[in-house]
């Protein structure tokens, strides 16, 4: 019995098939595990280990390197406020302090109602609209305390569900098309192309 529900499991298998080696699917699979559980649960980690042909310890050791993976449960909405250089110059630190007050939780923790987790992030590459705020990795582009508060209230009332889907950066990424159905054909073409090129390089060298 898989820990992943069937839709996620199917996407996971498709992801593994995209790569020459299954372990390469590690990061996308961890994003899927997080999409289902909100964080990396023991069961999710075991599932990813199974799919990549590794061990849970190996998966956890890899996941812990990356900031986007949560090894502990987090709120429904992870609010990230950037304080790196461009945001710092736009008052990012004060903004983070304000966010902490508004959400009622210190930076790095989750609000009592379990709705919000507040994080101080590194540069999120949207520096022309600073300080940058992301919720579940969606740019919400609120740069004043007032607009931030309004955005949080709307989130709380479920009015931003379309703009800010739940966890999982791949939640709306679906692949269609691709070459994987004809791998032999690709391999044959590759050999032929290499031979043709070698020939051209050789004739050029002469």
């Amino acid at each position: 019995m898989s820990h992943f529900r069937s839709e996620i499991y199917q996407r996971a298998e498709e992801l593994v098939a995209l790569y020459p080696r299954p372990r390469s699917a590690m990061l996308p699979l961890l994003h899927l595990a997080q999409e289902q559980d909100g964080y990396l649960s023991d069961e999710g980690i075991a599932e990813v280990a199974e799919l990549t042909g590794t061990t849970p310890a190996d998966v956890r050791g890899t996941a812990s390197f990356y900031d986007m993976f949560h090894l502990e449960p987090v709120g429904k909405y992870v609010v990230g406020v950037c304080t790196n250089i461009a945001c710092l110059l736009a008052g990012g630190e004060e903004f983070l302090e304000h966010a902490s007050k508004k959400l009622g939780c210190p930076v790095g923790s989750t609000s009592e109602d379990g709705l919000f987790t507040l994080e101080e992030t590194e540069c999120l590459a949207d520096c022309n609209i600073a300080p940058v705020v992301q919720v579940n990795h969606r740019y919400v582009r609120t740069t004043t305390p007032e607009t931030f508060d309004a955005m949080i209230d709307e989130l709380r009332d479920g009015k931003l569900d379309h703009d800010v889907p739940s966890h999982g950066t791949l939640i709306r990424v679906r692949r269609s098309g691709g070459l994987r159905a004809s791998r032999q054909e690709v391999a044959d073409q590759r050999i032929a192309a290499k031979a043709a090129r070698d020939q051209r390089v050789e004739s050029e060298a002469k």
Partner: protein
Amino acid sequence: MAALDAPRIVTSRRDFADSFTLARYLDTGGYVALKKALTMFPEAVAAEVDAASLLGRGGAGFPAGRKWSMLRKSPISYLVVNGDESEPATFKDHYLVERDPHQLVEGVIIAAYALQVNQAFIFMRGEFALGLERVQQALNDAYAHGALGSKIFGSDFSLDVVVHPGAGAYICGEETALIEALEGKRGFPRIKPPFFPAVTGLYGEPTVVNNVETMSNLPWIVNNGGAAFAALGGGRSTGTRLFALAGRVKNPGVYEVEMVKNTFRDLIYDPQLGGGIIDDKQIKAFIPGGVSAPWFGPELLDLPLGQDEVAGEGSMLGSGSIVVMDETSCVVRAVWRITKFFSRESCGQCTPCREGSGWIERAMYRLEHGGGRMEDIDLLLDLCDNIAPGLTWPPQQTTICVLGPSIPSSVHSAIQMFRDDFVAHVQHGGCPHE
């Protein structure tokens, strides 16, 4: 006055709200370059890129054509596109993946054809949720349109492109760390030599890694010829380039300007570009190429935006990110925050970087927040010297990758330029700006 008459090479669709759709892309000349490229020999396509002298737009500025031709004799297995844009205050690739994903995809297909590889990966920051969606949609559309997949546009060339999400690690922008992450491991940069993934890359096979902006230039180069690209700019810095302007300017944003023909002053002050400093304050300092680069003072505002020009003054154009600080900005706080970033993002493999970044961060913290000592200022320089001996530019390296030697840049620059500010912090027992 800024020279703004150069063609828009990578931002030609910036005025269209639907610039990311296939319909708009086809309407504005999309996939014409690919069709043209497919009628040429792969080497001829590579030769155009070589003729363009296109310098890699990721940060190191290595000529893309040379990166490709280095491997001519041994076939390349994989093309990997670096979209892990994480250098603080750099947001140009973010613009390209969200606003013009088809241009990127077409560039990737052209590059793959020139290199004759059948498998490409686009490694993108995991935080770019919308970017991942837009690029995947562009790929889906390209497959359906026949521009990607088996026998592209009826030719003998086939290609598969996979979008690979990162998961929040600055170091994965370093190409060997990126490859490790793509292999499903921690993003630990690989020991050099070999210096290039072209020798040992993904799964130990020859791999070319190119930046998103580099790829996005290729359709234009194929359409107009390498010579037309090389005619723009000056010296080794050909073509146009995207600059991400941030900090204390009126109009921060991504601007495509011709290299060398424009200066930092043009970019920061031209009304059509940065528009000057907020509240018309005086500029105090600016970072010319991402936080890994040494800082410049206002006396270098008239320096042209060119790779060698900036290198000649002891810094780098790097990732194309320019951060402006004005008289209201606290440089000590800025350095502290930059060092905190490096300390957080150091992968931990090499002692000078892992320990040095944390040590410098703690010293900077006490200077900024109270408890700083006069001897801390020289201690900081000594720590920097231990990471990059001699504090030269380009820096000496004691670590596997260049993250380590990037740490001293801001510390050393700020102490050299604004030692008085550091002294004031010690005397005041914290930041006098507060």
